[in-house]
């Protein structure tokens, strides 16, 4: 079994930055990442993107190449295509790569598993042709593919970014169906003071909106009663806005109303999480270095709470400093000296966040969907089912999982967990914290029994 000072899980901005800084400080590092190439979702395939596509995606994207370059280091082993499925004491990390099981041990772990799209259960959201806005971006970044007849539904900066990129590529969306209201924007104004420190983000947002407007993409705000029509595939989006019903025929629907931390790996090792009311999601309880209730493990990037790519990069560096200090490569004074400028940059990066969170809140009708709406895509469980199980005494999501299988499918609750917690909290009159979340166990991702069995006699120190 191979050993490293540090294993970083995830090769997005946080993971790449943590790995590079740790290696610079003399640590041996393995970066395990599922994708064939480094970058995470935000810088997906940045190293092989053709020039023309880079122009469509913008400089914020192509800048990611400086981070992927940092992985090319003597002390960094970037294991691409590695699907981590278990993290056990020690630390011992089990993963599969190319159909074979493997393990690596580490003195310290940095989890940089990023974000997931916030689940957006509306009628019809399981139909082929309905995807997340993140998926739309990935199609463009990695494959150079654009939807010809798409409607964008939801709220938030990512929706504008995707729309602007589609405009640049010559395939503007048919419409933007936005769920935020004027009242949300007014309410967000109290965060403007902080946001002005993050003016760069606000300016970018205004630029994107101007591009969308110039392309005459119809925008509807305050949209309600969202529904996607179709039997075998998406055919149209219907909604109401300002008292009028609308129907827009389309082939593709991109949904988005924010991203939330991907907490699967952290929860699987027992990291304590708390409800973050501002971002309406669970986030790990962390100290200023990304440390938490599991000694030796650090969480950085959007998996620690949504802050965006630049903030992720900075948090990754902070965790690397702490790991290096714990492993004797830095004095605590050196650590703190190096951390100071990073910390002040991080403060600036996060300044606009409360404004954005308030201006583009999650779409409320999808937080507590109507009874007939499917909320667990894998097992096809509806919101009404969950409410029924609450009446049968279910206080938390592990009980409803046993009763109705929500969260039992291959996605392991990634796209139903927050909805189930919200429905139960509402039905039982409890807080999200009291309601809790799924108990996440290995395998973090499905693994074939053959791959598992091939690890039966992996004796420690024998699998080099």
């Amino acid at each position: 079994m191979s050993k490293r000072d540090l294993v970083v899980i995830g090769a997005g901005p946080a993971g790449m930055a943590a790995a590079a800084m740790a290696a610079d400080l003399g640590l041996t590092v393995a970066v395990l990442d599922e994708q064939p190439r480094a970058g995470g979702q935000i810088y997906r395939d940045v190293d092989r993107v053709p020039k023309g596509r880079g122009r469509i995606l913008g400089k914020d994207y192509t800048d990611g190449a400086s981070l992927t370059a940092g992985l090319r280091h003597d002390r960094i082993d970037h294991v691409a295509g590695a699907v981590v499925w278990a993290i056990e004491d020690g630390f011992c990390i089990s993963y599969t790569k190319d159909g074979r099981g493997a393990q690596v041990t580490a003195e310290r772990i940095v989890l940089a598993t990023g974000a997931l799209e916030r689940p957006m259960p509306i009628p019809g959201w399981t139909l082929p042709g309905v995807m997340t806005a993140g998926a739309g971006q990935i199609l463009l970044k990695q494959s150079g593919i654009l939807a010809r007849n798409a409607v964008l539904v939801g709220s938030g900066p990512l929706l504008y970014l995707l729309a602007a990129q589609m405009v640049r590529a010559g395939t503007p969306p048919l419409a933007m169906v936005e769920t935020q209201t004027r009242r949300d924007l007014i309410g967000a104004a109290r965060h403007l003071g902080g946001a002005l420190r993050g003016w760069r983000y606000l300016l970018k947002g205004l630029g994107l909106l101007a591009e969308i407007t110039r392309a005459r993409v119809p925008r509807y705000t305050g949209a309600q009663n969202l529904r996607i029509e179709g039997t075998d595939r998406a055919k149209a989006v219907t909604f109401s806005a300002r008292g009028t019903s609308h129907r827009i025929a389309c082939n593709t629907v991109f949904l988005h109303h924010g991203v939330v931390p991907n907490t699967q790996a952290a929860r699987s090792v027992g990291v304590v999480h708390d409800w973050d009311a501002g971002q309406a999601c669970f986030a790990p309880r962390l100290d200023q270095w990304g440390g938490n209730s599991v000694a030796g493990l650090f969480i950085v990037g959007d998996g620690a709470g949504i802050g965006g790519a630049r903030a992720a990069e900075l948090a990754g560096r902070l965790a690397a400093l702490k790991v290096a200090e714990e492993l004797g490569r830095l004095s605590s004074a050196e650590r703190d000296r190096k951390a100071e400028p990073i910390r002040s940059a991080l403060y600036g990066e996060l300044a606009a966040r409360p404004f954005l969170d308030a201006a583009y809140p999650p779409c409320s009708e999808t937080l507590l969907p109507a009874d007939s709406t499917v909320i667990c895509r894998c097992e096809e469980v509806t919101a009404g089912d969950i409410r029924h199980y609450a009446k049968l005494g279910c206080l938390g999501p592990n009980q409803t999982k046993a009763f109705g299988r929500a969260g039992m499918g291959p996605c392991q609750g990634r796209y139903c967990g927050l909805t189930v917690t919200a429905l139960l909290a509402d039905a039982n009159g409890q807080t999200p914290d009291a309601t809790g979340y799924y108990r996440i166990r290995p395998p973090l991702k499905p693994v074939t029994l053959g791959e598992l069995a091939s690890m039966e006699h992996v004796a420690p120190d024998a699998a080099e």
Partner: protein
Amino acid sequence: MKPVSPFLELDDTPRAEVTFDGAPLRLPEGANLAAALLAAGIDVFRNTPVSGAPRGPFCMMGACFDCLVEIDGVVRQACMIEVSPGLQIHRPHAQEADDVQA
């Protein structure tokens, strides 16, 4: 007949011969399989084992498990596979289910 794709492809990449449910397809070599199938006009990748509902790619980042296909008898996420020549892609467990019915 090739289905009309609702997707526009920006670049022209060398193609690889593969099959989907036995039908020949030419997909860009090295491309993300889920994206390549979408661009080829295939939107329904599978039917769910629960209700038989049609599904296709949703998240494109390995999280949702809706783009499952079967390759060499193993059900995997199409969005986590790259196109290589000779891939034989099937809808999950479609063959075994047919065997049982036969």
